[in-house]
């Protein structure tokens, strides 16, 4: 299979995003890179089914996600970093000056159910529309919307409960959060 230079460049440019999404799925960057490698090989093998000019990034994300869940099905939860283990490892890392909030956020993110975390990442970080995220996850747009909204609600709950006053970089958001639970 040969591909055009522009497609190759686009593929290369998608790698950082694919890695970030893979890390969010696996919670482990080594495994995430294996997943990205599988994805690139799969994508290469079936580039003839990709319509040039359509959304390459969404196409690649779909392949990566399918690959991840098919590995989970085959090998069981060991493929995924068990939710608790990942959160515990994060929690045991020493807090770096100024990164305390981000570390807490990672821990909270790791505690979300997989489907909610994935929807939130796709829409809130990867920059996909609800429609694109629904296509990638092969579910209805409304399902994505409700997962994203539940994920946000759950995050604000976890963060406010565990780190109430110090959540957020500024006092306003901390106040907003503690008020939301009152």
């Amino acid at each position: 299979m040969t591909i055009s230079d522009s497609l190759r460049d686009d593929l290369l440019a998608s790698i950082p995003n694919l890695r970030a999404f893979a890390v969010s799925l696996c919670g482990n960057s080594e495994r995430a890179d294996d997943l990205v490698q599988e994805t690139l090989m799969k994508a290469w093998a079936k580039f003839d089914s990709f319509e040039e000019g359509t959304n390459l990034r969404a196409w690649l994300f779909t392949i990566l996600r399918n690959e991840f869940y098919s590995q989970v099905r085959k090998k069981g939860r060991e493929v995924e970093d068990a939710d608790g283990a990942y959160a515990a490892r994060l929690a045991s890392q020493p807090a770096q000056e100024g990164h305390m909030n981000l570390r807490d956020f990672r821990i909270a993110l790791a505690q979300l159910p997989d489907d909610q975390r994935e929807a939130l990442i796709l829409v809130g970080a990867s920059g996909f529309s609800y429609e694109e995220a629904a296509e990638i996850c092969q579910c209805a747009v409304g399902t994505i919307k409700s997962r994203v909204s539940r994920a946000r609600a759950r995050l604000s709950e976890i963060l406010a409960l565990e780190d109430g006053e110090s959540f957020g970089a500024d006092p306003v958001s901390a106040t907003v959060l503690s008020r939301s639970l009152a």
Partner: protein
Amino acid sequence: MEYAYALRSERFMADHEEKDAGRRKAGTGGGGSRRAATGGDDGELDPRIQCEIGRQLRAVYDDVISEPVPDRFLELLHQLEKSAGKKC
């Protein structure tokens, strides 16, 4: 700069939510005026909390994005291209 990006993507999301809310209304056949975006009677979070979550989410994600692409992927693409060349 990262913060500006987060704000932008929040705005993008908010736009989508509004559009979707509009569609939902249309779908149920209701012709009434749309609820104010800040009404929040369906349990939506305060926009400021959403914004804060969006900001942290992007910061976590961008941590990985900003890493250089590992050599293994460049090598992989080389290999794939080489093997494609041989076949032709």
